[in-house]
């Protein structure tokens, strides 16, 4: 059978599709949390020697991406009245199709990126497709929380790619990713909270006051 990390990477792509295909905000957040949990297992599956560095990375990822941030976002939408993505700029079917195209593109270009010292040849295409799907979610959804989740997915893709370099550029890279996600989403979560208060809604199409 295949090694565990390949399975994990495939599941990461499936959670990408989950984020793309779902309209309920709570379900989107749950998908992001699942992806975070998968990513936490990934360094342990990739680097079997279980150095303290990798253990710390896995623990940090689990804590931040699988528990903390989803909880923060859940709290941010708790007071929201409207918990669905009403009219995304691109329909769910189309974004699923676009996501599949993105995955195909990622898999077709990644052989052209010969990255040295790769533990798995799925790492790069999965990273690229996750980044692209994150961008799709970010640009086609209207709800602030969904956009934050899109950003989270984007960062998760970068994290997967960063794992390929985790041995060559230790510590700094993983600290960077965790810091980025943590601080970025934390600040965004606060803004979402204020948004809820100010507009009684999380819909960014309310943002039309600042036009040229």
């Amino acid at each position, binding site marked *: 059978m295949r090694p565990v990390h390949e399975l994990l990477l495939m599941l990461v792509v499936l959670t990408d599709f989950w984020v793309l295909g779902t309209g309920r905000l709570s379900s989107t957040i749950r998908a992001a949390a699942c992806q975070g949990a998968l990513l936490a297992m990934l360094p342990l599956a990739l680097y079997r020697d279980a150095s303290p560095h990798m253990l710390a990375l896995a623990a940090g990822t689990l804590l931040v991406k699988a528990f903390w941030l989803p909880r923060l976002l859940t709290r941010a939408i708790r007071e929201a009245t409207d918990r669905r993505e009403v009219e995304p700029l691109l329909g769910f079917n189309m974004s699923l199709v676009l996501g599949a195209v993105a995955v195909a593109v990622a898999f077709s270009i990644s052989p*052209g*990126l*010969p*990255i*040295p010292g790769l533990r798995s040849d799925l790492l790069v295409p999965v990273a690229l497709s996750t*980044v692209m799907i994150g*961008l799709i979610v*970010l640009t086609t959804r209207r709800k*602030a929380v969904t*956009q934050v989740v899109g*950003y989270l997915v*984007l*960062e998760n*893709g*970068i994290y997967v*790619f*960063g794992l*390929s*370099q985790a041995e*060559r*550029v230790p510590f*700094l*890279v993983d*600290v*960077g*990713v965790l*810091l*980025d996600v943590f*601080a*970025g989403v934390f*600040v*965004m979560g606060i*803004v979402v909270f*204020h*948004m809820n208060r*100010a*507009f009684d809604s999380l819909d*960014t199409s309310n*943002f039309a*006051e*600042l036009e*040229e």
Partner: protein
Amino acid sequence: MILAAALLALPVVAGLGAYWLPSARVRMGLLLGTAALHLAGCLAAWRLPCGPASGDWLGLDALGLIVLTVASAVFLAVAVGSRAFLAAHAQRGERVFAGCLFGFLGAATLVAESQHLALMWIGMEATTLAMAPLVFHSRTRRSLEAVWKYLLLSSVGIGLALFGTFFLAAAQGAGRPLILGDLVLHAASLQPGLLRAAFVFLLVGYGTKMGLAPLHAWKPDTYGEAPAPVAALMAGALTSCAFLGLARVTQVMVAAHQFAFVRPPLLALGLASLVVSAGFMVWQTDLRRLFAYSSVEHMGLLAIALGIGGAGMFGAALHIVGNGLVKAAMFLAVGNVILLSKTSESGGTRGLLRRAPWTSVLLVLGLFAVTGSPPFALFVSEFAILGAAFHAGLAWLALVIVVLFTIVFVAMARVLLRVVYTAPEPGASVLAERPALVAGPALLVGAVLLLGLHVPAPLRAVLADAARALGGNAP
């Protein structure tokens, strides 16, 4: 090295101290003191040798020194301006305001001093986040919208820059990972395909932070809604730091003989920024948004300068100084206008010359400085860049730039002169122009004027150093 570390530690320690201080007055005093000390340290760094030793993570090379000094000078002016701003707004949220300012100074110092590209990226991320609460300071719906756009676009940009940094690490064949000196030294061993991918992501990432069109959407909104000192800090220091990121990448690409690959995207993004900003400035009536587009324009010019190479690199280094100083001065001056008439809409203010003479003079001088008229420093730098364009066989580009500059000048003059030279409405209030309100921008504009008249020898040497690091030369 010790000086570099001290400069980095200063704002961090002072910021931590300031957060626990009970009194707002003392805290603002500490802010001013720290800013002054930081600038003094920066100027000392021009005298002392503090270039990075091989393999150091921190150190000040020519480019870093230039950006750090600009950021520090702008910060001092902004610190003075912030005090007046907070006093006018009943000191609301002053603790967070001061804390974020300290945080920004520390982060900007880290960006300028980093010789490790991942460390620089962390600094860049920190500058982004430190700015967010400052932008949201007024807590209105409009500022909420502005901070959302700013956070979302900048975060995505910074994320893509991290992606690019990873690509750069993957491309590296020899040397310590992501150390700038080693990247340049072993540039021949960089894997070209991955290097190009890295450049694309870093260009988009740091380009978003610079506000290059079409990634500039956050800029007018953010500058238009942020408190004036914050906008000054963003336009003067934040964009300079982002430019440094792009310049570092270009430095590596040039060392790896990839300049031919780098040039078209830089020129395209730069030109797009010029066209977009000129187009939007024609219709713009809000002073802050006007200067925001002006910032887009100058960032575009910097990207073009990097794409031209040769003496353009020297021009870019000088331009970063001139643009940073004058843009900060302009936003501080506009802050005075807002204090007077509660709006930065040009229609809301008449007869500024009678009501706030010093600010008016600053705005008019700034108009000429920003649009690159002699005898200001931006004229010298723009002249160098245009000359380099001719030299590189890009005469069409130089002509297009000149035409766009003309449009920009007319658009800006139309708005600014109407605000300054109209007759005031009867009974219009007059601004008490205390020294704290005008000293900062006046000193900055004065510096730009002096640099336009004469570039001192030490500065010229450092600028030439920076240009050489980027594969260019002094004119």
